[in-house]
Every structure is written in C-alpha cells, then in structure tokens.
C-alpha cells in the first residue's frame, strides 16, 4: 500500500508503469510486496527488541478506533441524505436524524416527485453530453496545441504559453459578464456552443499540463519518424499521442470533475437547457423555500453516479487530482 502512494507522488513514474506490460507490473508488484514484507518484518523485530511490544499494539488500536470514528463521521452526511430521501417532507426538516418509521416512510415518492419536478433525466443526459463532449474536445485540441507550442519556438508560441498560464490565476467572476455577452452574441448558448466555451476555459490548465509532459518526450523519436516520411499529423498521432495517454487521462479526469459539477458557467451561458447542478438548484423556490424531501432524493441520484465513477477509476482520480495540484 505504501508504494501505491509513492506512485501517486510522481507523474513520471506513473507514465512508466502505465506502459510496461501487465505481467511486468504484476511481477514488480509481487517483488515490491515481498521486499516490503521483509523490511516490515525486520522493523517489527527491531521495534520488539526496543521495549514497546504490547504497548505499541495498544496505542495502535486506539488510533484505529479514532480512524473508525472519523470515518463514520465522514460517511454520516451521505447516509443521512439516503435515509431522509425515503421520508415525508415534514419529517426531513423536523427529525432528520431519525430512521424512517412506518409513519414517516414514503417509499420512492420523493424520487418520482423530484425526477418529474426538476426534469432529472433530461438534465442528467445533458450533463453527460456536455461533460463528455467538452472533455474529448479538450483532450484532442489542447494536446495538439501544447505539442505545437513546445515544438515550435518563436515569439508567438512563447506568448501563447504565457497567456495560457496566466489564465489559470484569473477567477471566473472576472470574465463572466463579458463572456456570457460574447457567448450570446455568437449564439453559443446551446449544448454544442458551451463545449467551445469549456474548451477555451479549460485550455489554460490542460495546455500547461500537456506541455509539461511533452517536454519529457525525447525529440529523437519524432525526428526519426519525420525522416522516415511522417508528416506532423502522423508524427503527433502515431508517436506522441500514445505516449501522452496516461497524462491525457489525468487531464480528462480533472476537467470532467470540474465540468460535471459546474453550476455558474452553464447557468450564464445556456439558454433553454439545464444541467444537473442547475436542475438541483431549481428545487429552491422563490424566497428560499426548498422542498427538502424531493431534494434529498435528487441528491442521492446526483451522488450515485459520482460514487460509481470514483470506485471504477479511483486510482486514476487520486493520481490525477494530485498531479493537477502539483502542476497547477
């Protein structure tokens, strides 16, 4: 478990392992584990010799117990949402910590209610379309752009790089008003148009990260390909793009998380369509009154896909987020 975390810490190592064959990885894993076990056994021996045999175990159990308590506190909110999603409106606000009883239990009423009220499924599908479309566009365009500005060295590629880096420190509020004006004028207020906006907005971080990875691709391979008669397009897609795959996953996850959860940008840009966060916000009526029962059910439906996605690609997500933190 320790070396798993070590992998996370360096993006380069991550690139290496992703390309070695599965078998090699497996073997390496076994060897590492063996070495670790041996090391641990030795350490344990040393520790045991050092006076604190049973006492260490005692404090270890206390620490473990503390962790279990914290873990329960951490899951409790999600559990409470799930529990309350089956209770009647009044009971959600009056006794949210009580289990559903025969009196308060309403079955799936909140779900059917909420789904209808906010148009859950259209919103969900639109969110999926926008997120997927924008991420694919971002990966393709920004990797090509990053390759171009790292391989061509002139004044304007340097300027572009600076501008992309600069855009990362500008908060959304600075540009939101003129941006929604431009988006409206250019008729980008639909599902396709918003992808263009996301491409432009995500370009900073994505180009910056891709450029970092491309710098580590040896130039010799590309030159060999070019001498063999590959044009820039084939060189990029046959040589660079496969090498960049692990970093593309990182960039994709960072952007997907941001776009999926984004509330403000689609609210300002989209005309008739609603994304999932917008649909959920829609449950807050005038004067701040909220239908909490339907809200709980919709929150469950919003969280489930995230949890599935998380458990399906947990490793990539944690790696990606850490890499993004270090680079950004």
């Amino acid at each position: 478990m320790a070396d798993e975390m070590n992998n996370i810490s360096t993006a380069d190592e991550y690139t290496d392992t992703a390309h070695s064959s599965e078998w090699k990885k497996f073997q390496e894993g076994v060897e590492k584990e063996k070495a670790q076990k041996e090391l641990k056994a030795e350490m344990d021996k040393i520790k045991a010799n050092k006076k604190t045999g049973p006492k260490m175990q005692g404090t270890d159990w206390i620490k473990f117990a503390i962790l279990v308590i914290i873990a329960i506190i951490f899951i409790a909110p999600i559990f409470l949402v799930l529990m309350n999603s089956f209770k009647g409106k009044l009971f959600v606000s009056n006794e949210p910590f009580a289990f559903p009883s025969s009196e308060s239990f309403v079955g799936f009423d909140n779900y059917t209610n909420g789904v209808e009220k906010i148009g859950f499924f259209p919103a969900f599908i639109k969110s999926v379309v926008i997120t997927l479309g924008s991420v694919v566009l971002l990966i393709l365009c920004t990797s090509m752009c990053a390759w171009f500005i790292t391989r061509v060295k002139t004044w304007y590629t340097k300027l572009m790089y600076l501008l992309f880096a600069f855009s990362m420190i500008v908060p959304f509020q600075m540009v939101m008003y003129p941006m929604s004006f431009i988006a409206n004028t250019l008729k980008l207020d639909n599902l396709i148009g918003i992808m263009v906006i996301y491409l432009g907005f995500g370009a900073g971080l994505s180009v910056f990260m891709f450029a970092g990875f491309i710098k580590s691709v040896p130039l010799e391979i590309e030159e060999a390909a070019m001498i063999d008669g590959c044009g820039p397009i084939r060189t990029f897609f046959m040589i660079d793009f496969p090498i960049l795959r692990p970093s593309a996953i990182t960039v994709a996850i960072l952007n997907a998380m941001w776009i999926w959860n984004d509330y403000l940008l689609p609210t300002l840009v989209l005309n008739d369509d609603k994304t999932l966060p917008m649909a959920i916000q829609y449950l807050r009526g005038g004067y701040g009154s909220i239908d909490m029962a339907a809200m709980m059910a919709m929150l469950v439906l919003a969280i489930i896909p995230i949890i599935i996605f998380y458990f399906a690609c947990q490793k990539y997500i944690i790696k990606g987020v850490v890499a993004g933190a270090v680079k950004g």
Partner: protein
Amino acid sequence: MDKAIKKWFPLFALPTVVAFTIAFLAPFIMGLYLSLCKFKTVKDAKLIGFNNYARAFSDDKFINALWFTTKFTIVSVITINILAFILAMLLTKSLKGTNVFRTLFFMPNLIGGIVLGYIWIMIINGVLYYSNATITSDPNYGFWGLVILMNWQLIGYMMIIYISGIQNISPDLLEAAEIDGANRWQKLIHVTLPQIMPSITICLFLTLTNSFKLFDQNYALTAGAPGDKTQMLALDIYNTFYGRVGWQGVGQAKAVVFFIIVAAIALTQLYLTRSKEVEN
C-alpha cells in the same frame, strides 16, 4: 523541423486559440475596460473613469463580503490543514485498512458544490431545529456551516497530498533522529515538518485559493442570508451584476479587485515554490 510544423498552425493550435480567445482573452480585456464604464448591456458602455471602483469600495456589502471571505478563508485554511495533516500522520502508520480510510476520506471532494450545500442545509437545520433556529437565522451559523462543509470537502484531498509528502521522507532520517535520542514530538518538528514543506506549501495555497474563490457552496448553503451577511466575494460580485440594476459597472470593478487579490495570492505561491526549488 520547426518550419515543417510551423505551417500547421491552423490545424494544431487554431481551434484552441479561437476558443481561448472567445472564452477568456476577449472577455478579460473587455472586463478591464468595462470596469471603467457605465453600462447595462455591454453595448451601451460609456467610459466614466474610476467611479465604479469608488462606488465598489463605498459599498457596505462589498466590504462586508471582503471581511467575511477573509475570516472564512483564515479559519478554514487552518482547520483543514491541521486535520488533514493529523489524518495523514495516522494513515502512514502501519494500521489496518489504511487504504479503505483514504478512499473514504477523499470521496466528498468529488461531490459538486451545489450538492454539498444542500446536504449540509439538511444536517445543520436538523441540529438547529432543537433550538428553534435555521441556518439563516444567525450569520454565525452560516459561517460555521460553511467552515464545516469546506472541511468535509477538502480534508481528504489535502490528506492525500500530505500522505505522499510523508511517504517521500527517507526512513534513514527518522531512524537517525531516533538514534540521536529524539522523541516523537522532536521528530515531528525537526524531521517530518521540514521534509514535507513542499506539500505544506501546495496544501496551504490550494485551500487558500479554493476558500477565497468559493461560490457554489456559499450560494447553495445560505445564498448570503440573513441579509447578505454571509455573502462571500464571488457571490457579492454575482449579485451586483445580476441582482442590482445599473450596478453592472460596479460589479465589474469588484471583479477586477477580486482578480487582483487572487492573482497576488497565486504569484506569492509561485514565488515561494520557486525560491524553495533553488534552495534544494
């Protein structure tokens, strides 16, 4: 090789450059200009100088939001980092199930701000129900509600960064300290903390910028209530643009001030990480 690639600019770089110009570059320049204008729909902008900035700084709501945001940022940066570091220390000991714990603690980070806000409305209102109050009856409830929410969301994320820092410390160093007779506390202060300085810098600035720029969570949890007292900067700017007629110019001026503060924070971080790299 340069030249062969150069002529491919339209294919490789142009799509990104066009989108970047539409979504960021043009709005940014327009934003700077509009902050000096009086306007309602962008098209009717008239240059009026620094009047908007003067109005922004004499707006109580803005000053209150600035103060609220600063307070919130300081409290959440401290609590998140201390708690995340303690968890990271616990989870780098050879305990059972550390992987399961890590997975769990990180999870809230993936949930979006709007959803987070409504989860915590339910919980906080549930607790306050016993004293006949809601989260919007006192600005303090909103403040601490936001702090708790932010802790729940970011502790796991920062913990992961601290863990990777702690695991990069060479065991030799700790062993050497032990042989020299250092106790646990001394090892922490003199070995662990200096060794994970890069992680600390990253975490401090991530929490700092994330807290300072917070919008969704603030919008969903209290929406500024009661009486705009729990309004943070980003939300105040949003409300100035879209909630107050004739204040668009002031909103843009506030946004420029906001940008300058955020940029100053980011550049400080850049400077600090750079100067550390030189030391190493």
